């Protein structure tokens, strides 16, 4: 329960910042202002300004949009493709299931960042290619989790009872397997969301993600590195923002899992 509350608060913080940034930011996040360069924490620029005089808080708020956008799309791609694939592999005859999983292993062997860099080289580096690449690289973990959950559910007596009741395979997959593995999937989604946020930050840091001038937490980190020893604030602010988002989604996932499982909810 505590996880759920804390996770929700942290995620809500990021979501609110992103939503608010559509209507209002303290300053124009991309406006260069040479007279106010490298200001520290202060009353007008709360988190200070970077080497171009851009307001850090405004960049952070707009960057939250990018972060959420990437997470939602990447996890969406992975869940929508990976989950049915895993359920299919778990319910089909053994040879077909094994085949799907071996192909899955092949994709899994590709590091997400490498795939994203490759995609960036081929299709041009921007937020969209980064999201799609991270999403594709995350499919195998969903397929894997979905399959192991499916195998477990398929061996239970209630699936046998469902078949004895004349239920079709599709019906069993949708009404018996999916609800019973949703807890697993939600946890996987939250973990993947956190990984996607990190991956986007890493890609932007490497110059394969969000293109300037669109603010991104990863690129803020990258731009901070040459001034790391003089102005650690520039790295700390986006770093903490990334940590808050990652931690928030992880806690939210844990909390949701406990909450959504009717058996666990009854005890708690």
């Amino acid at each position, binding site marked *: 329960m505590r996880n759920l509350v804390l996770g929700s608060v942290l995620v809500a913080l990021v979501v609110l910042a992103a939503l608010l940034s559509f209507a209002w930011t303290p300053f124009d996040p991309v406006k260069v202002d040479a007279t106010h360069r490298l200001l520290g924490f202060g009353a007008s620029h709360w988190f200070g300004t970077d080497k171009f005089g851009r307001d850090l808080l405004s960049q952070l708020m707009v960057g939250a949009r990018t972060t959420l956008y990437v997470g939602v799309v990447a996890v969406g791609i992975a869940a929508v493709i990976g989950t049915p694939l895993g359920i299919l592999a778990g319910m089909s005859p053994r040879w077909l299931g094994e085949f799907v999983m071996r192909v899955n292993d092949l994709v899994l062997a590709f590091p997400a960042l490498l795939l994203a860099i490759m995609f960036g080289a081929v299709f041009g580096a921007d937020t969209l290619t980064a999201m799609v690449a991270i999403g594709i690289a995350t499919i195998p973990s969903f397929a894997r989790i979905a399959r192991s959950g499916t195998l477990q559910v398929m061996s239970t007596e209630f699936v046998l009872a469902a078949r004895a009741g*004349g239920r*079709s395979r599709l019906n069993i997959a949708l009404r*018996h397997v999916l609800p019973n593995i949703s807890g697993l999937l939600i946890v996987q989604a939250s973990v993947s969301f956190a990984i996607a946020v990190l991956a986007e930050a890493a890609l932007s840091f490497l110059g394969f993600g969000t293109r300037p001038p669109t603010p991104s937490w990863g690129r803020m980190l990258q731009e901070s590195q040459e001034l790391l020893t003089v102005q650690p604030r520039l790295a700390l602010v986006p770093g903490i923002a990334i940590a808050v988002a990652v931690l928030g989604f992880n806690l939210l996932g844990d909390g949701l899992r406990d909450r959504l499982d009717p058996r666990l909810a009854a005890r708690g």
Partner: protein
Amino acid sequence: MTLSVRGLSVSSLVRDVSFEIGAGERVGLIGESGSGKSLTALAIMGLLPEELPASGSVVLHDRELLELSEKDLSRLRGDELAMVFQEPMTALNPAMRVGRQVTEPGRIHGRRQRAEDLLAAVGLPGTARAYPHQLSGGQRQRVVLAMALANEPSLLICDEPTTALDVTVQAQILSLIKTSLPADSALLFITHDLAVVASVCERVLVMLDGEIVEAGSTREVLTAPKHDYTRKLLDASDLEARR
């Protein structure tokens, strides 16, 4: 004959099993664990695991079940054929309300039924919105029974439906099976409890190591057993003491 099984074999675990059950007849299948009782039941339902194919013949109302496709079989299951499993704790989907679970066989076979009515018929009014974990073992077995009986099957197979329950609940479930099974439905009742067989079944089959070693009316088999194994079963049970 409602059900006619001829020379049914499953790998080497069930060998050349033959029996018949008429409309309205209650037949017991007894034997120790591992004797092939449950496999026989699963073979009739067409629910054997893929690596265990069945051979022989299983005819339900002039239809050969072993030759039917999975699709045709699933049309029969839950409608003409129904089964109650041993473990009520795992026979219900933990993530689905029981009201939805009991109406599902009907919905699949195109009938509209009210969950409340089906549950009330097994003595569980007002539980439609409960999840399985909120019910006791006996209550869950009633739900399983309500699901199996929802479409008035012509053959109901009960695979040790009372083994996991305590004695008083056992008696309630047994009387529920006896009273709520339609009069012209056939019943195959699998158990290793001879007292249960004596109270439910008119005829009994004794199974040992995958074969049926004795068959006859319950009275005959339980009072004058012909096969050594049946005698041993009787000696090992406390049936005599209870009578």
